[in-house]
């Protein structure tokens, strides 16, 4: 990205933040509700300096990562099997489509009974929410594999399992990678939601605590921080995709 494009991209958010600051100072917006940038930024820096934000971030990210990994560990193998064995996909379609619309937050009361207030609570609900994009994208990616590739595997004498490992999985990987990236975004959103709604840990709980103690600037500091962390993770995952799937991008003329 060129510097020029970066600067252009910053014009709108900077203008918005300036308008926010001016509106609060002019009394158009309530400072109790909206705080203002000149108080939010110091609150953010203070939280980072004294380690509280870092500690809360670690709690949320560890839970999100855990839940996401569970979803990947179930969703990728299951998606491979469903994508390769068409009758099995038809058999499970109704079950999957019935479970998928269940709001992940509806699981909170049940999972709370099982694990109590814990990392596992965040992680389990996040895993449920992440499972569907991973599963659906993997199934679709496997179904889209060039049949000739699998036939080459047969002709070379590879057995069924070896064909999955050497042919189906790598061929589906560009699709799976997109599913994993989308899922990680969902994992963070869900983890924070669970923390706001029920679980006394992590960034979500820190936000709700700040709100209840009438410290709007701290609440916004967390909000901005969550956005920043989510964005950075997304950028890192795109980088990783481009690196590990060089063959895919090289063929498409975008390195």
């Amino acid at each position: 990205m060129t510097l020029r494009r970066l600067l252009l991209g910053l014009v709108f958010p900077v203008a918005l933040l300036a308008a926010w600051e001016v509106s609060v100072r002019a009394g158009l917006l309530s400072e109790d509700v909206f705080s203002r940038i000149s108080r939010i930024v110091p609150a953010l820096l203070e939280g980072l300096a004294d380690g509280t934000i870092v500690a809360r971030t670690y709690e949320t990210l560890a839970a999100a990562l855990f839940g996401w990994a569970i979803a990947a560990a179930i969703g990728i193998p299951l998606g491979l099997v469903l994508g390769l064995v068409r009758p099995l996909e038809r058999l499970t379609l109704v079950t999957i489509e019935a479970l998928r619309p269940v709001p992940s937050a509806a699981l909170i009361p049940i999972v709370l009974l099982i694990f109590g207030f814990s990392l596992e609570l965040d992680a389990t609900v996040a895993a449920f929410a992440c499972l569907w994009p991973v599963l659906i994208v993997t199934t679709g990616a496997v179904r889209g594999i060039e049949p000739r590739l699998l036939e080459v595997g047969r002709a070379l004498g590879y057995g069924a399992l070896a064909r999955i490992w050497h042919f189906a999985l790598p061929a589906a990987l560009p699709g799976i990678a997109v599913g994993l990236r989308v899922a990680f975004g969902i994992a963070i959103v869900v983890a924070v939601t669970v923390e706001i709604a029920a679980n006394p840990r992590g960034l979500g709980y820190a936000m709700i605590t700040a709100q209840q103690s009438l410290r709007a600037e701290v609440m916004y500091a967390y909000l901005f921080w969550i956005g920043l962390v989510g964005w950075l993770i997304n950028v890192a995952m795109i980088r990783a995709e481009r690196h590990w799937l060089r063959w895919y991008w090289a063929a498409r003329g975008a390195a």
Partner: protein
Amino acid sequence: MAQPIFAFRDVSVRFGATPILDKVGFDVAPEEFLCLVGPSGCGKTTLLRVAAGLIRPQEGRAEFEGRAVAEPTPELAIVFQDYSRALLPWRTVAGNVELALEARGAPRAGRAAEVKRLLGIIGLADHAQKFPLQLSGGMQQRVQIARALAQRPRILLMDEPFGSLDAMTRQALQDEIARLCKAERQTVVFVTHDLEEAIYLGDRVVALEANPGRVVEIVEIALPRPRDQLTTREHPRFLEYRHRLFGHLAKKEAE
């Protein structure tokens, strides 16, 4: 004729109610370059897939050294026409060739040297680390041929391997494959719809007719080797064979 290394014995294939091949039977001698020519729809590709063990005929069988070919074996290597789909895009040129070595369980230590030797033979020494999609069509087909040779097959099965290449590349590859197979005493079954290609390359040409596929004529090609793109194609016997076989193709295409 010497003891056949391979034979089709009254092979009949139907797709549903449609007969594709009807009691096709002929032998392949060791070290022979046998070309199979016929109009589209004569089932020549299907016959080659039977030979490779990729499909089973409803009646009759393909025999390799007297044993029925029931499934793919490393002793029979197949080169597909659609090279871009038959290569693994995530593996480099060297990686694609090595795939066949892995499949036949070649010791890890010797693989790199073997890959290098094969890429040298087929004129790809400088492209080992490129991905297939970064190569031209002719180069990609060379990779597929190198991979087939890496199987150390007793019989090389080729399904219109040069059918989608431009004329110059096709002629260059024809000469290389002819020279290579004679030097290595490789038995080849070569499918093509191009009659002149069949006569140019073959020790014998088997002509099939279509709907359903049947053998109409088998011609010994008594043209001197090494063959030459100019003189061989101007040889009186070349023209004689062409006249003789042309009728079988033209007759069916006209209907």
